[in-house]
């Protein structure tokens, strides 16, 4: 293993993480809800589900974040590494998988681990492991 020092951004990543933690804290303290984006999207897709307008407003804030950021600074670098087919397959897997697994990086990885939930700890280990293996297979075994 070699560390990519050139792209390593410890301070902005820590600060961004702290901001994510602050947002999740606000949502649970004020609204009594977990900031799990896949769950919020799932509810949004179900008309008449509980608390749909509150959840939609959280998603709206998330959606316009780059526009608000753009008022003050240029957006950070955004580089996609896959073509349309890879994006479509990945999107499908992320959609189905997060619903079956009841959460994603935010709901399990941030909120669940903060709650010390055994399910979330197991889910986070599982999707991290699957992510590491997938990148290894795609980049180093298949060489794409």
């Amino acid at each position, binding site marked *: 293993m070699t560390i*990519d020092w050139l792209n*390593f*951004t410890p301070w*902005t*990543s820590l600060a*961004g*993480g*702290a*901001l*994510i*933690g*602050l*947002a*999740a*804290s606000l*949502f649970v*303290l*004020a609204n*009594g809800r977990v900031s799990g984006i*896949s769950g919020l999207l799932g509810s949004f897709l179900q008309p008449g589900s509980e608390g749909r307008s509150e*959840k939609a*407003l*959280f998603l709206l*804030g*998330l959606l316009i*974040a780059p526009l608000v950021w753009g008022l003050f600074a240029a957006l950070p670098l*955004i580089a*996609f590494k*896959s073509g*349309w087919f890879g*994006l*479509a*397959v*990945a*999107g499908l*897997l992320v*959609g*189905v*998988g*997060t*619903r079956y*697994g*009841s959460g*994603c*990086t*935010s709901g399990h990885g941030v909120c669940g*681990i903060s*709650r010390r*939930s055994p399910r979330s700890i*197991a889910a986070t280990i*599982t999707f991290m*492991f*699957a*992510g*590491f*293996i*997938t*990148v*290894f297979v*795609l980049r180093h075994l298949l060489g794409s």
Partner: protein
Amino acid sequence: MRKLTAFIAGLLFGIGLLLAGMANPGKVLGFLDLAGAWDPSLALVMVGAIVVASVPFSWAGKQSKSLLGAPMQLPVKRELDVRLIGGSLLFGIGWGIAGICPGPAVVLLLTAHWQAFVFVLAMLVGMLLFTALEARRAH
């Protein structure tokens, strides 16, 4: 008031993702590439988030109502099951292919990249597929 706090929480969450580098699929893949030139940044995103959120969540876990009077709705299930692990495996494979998870997917929508639309469309189809499969299972 709860609508306002929901909106602010979402906005802060999105700004945090942008600042952290999570909204850059290339950076996420750099974190997932242990065997290549590894960028450990995203481990620090989780550390930062969990350090900040742990005390509020442990306090929230002992309350029945939020500060604004909403019912506290934290998940109560603790047992592991096949759906949790299987679903998380599928999610991790998808995450490893494109380097995008649901939060950043929403943030990326309005950054003028066509790739974000393809990903989000497929992700929503996947979520609806889950709902359809669940409805069939219930019959």
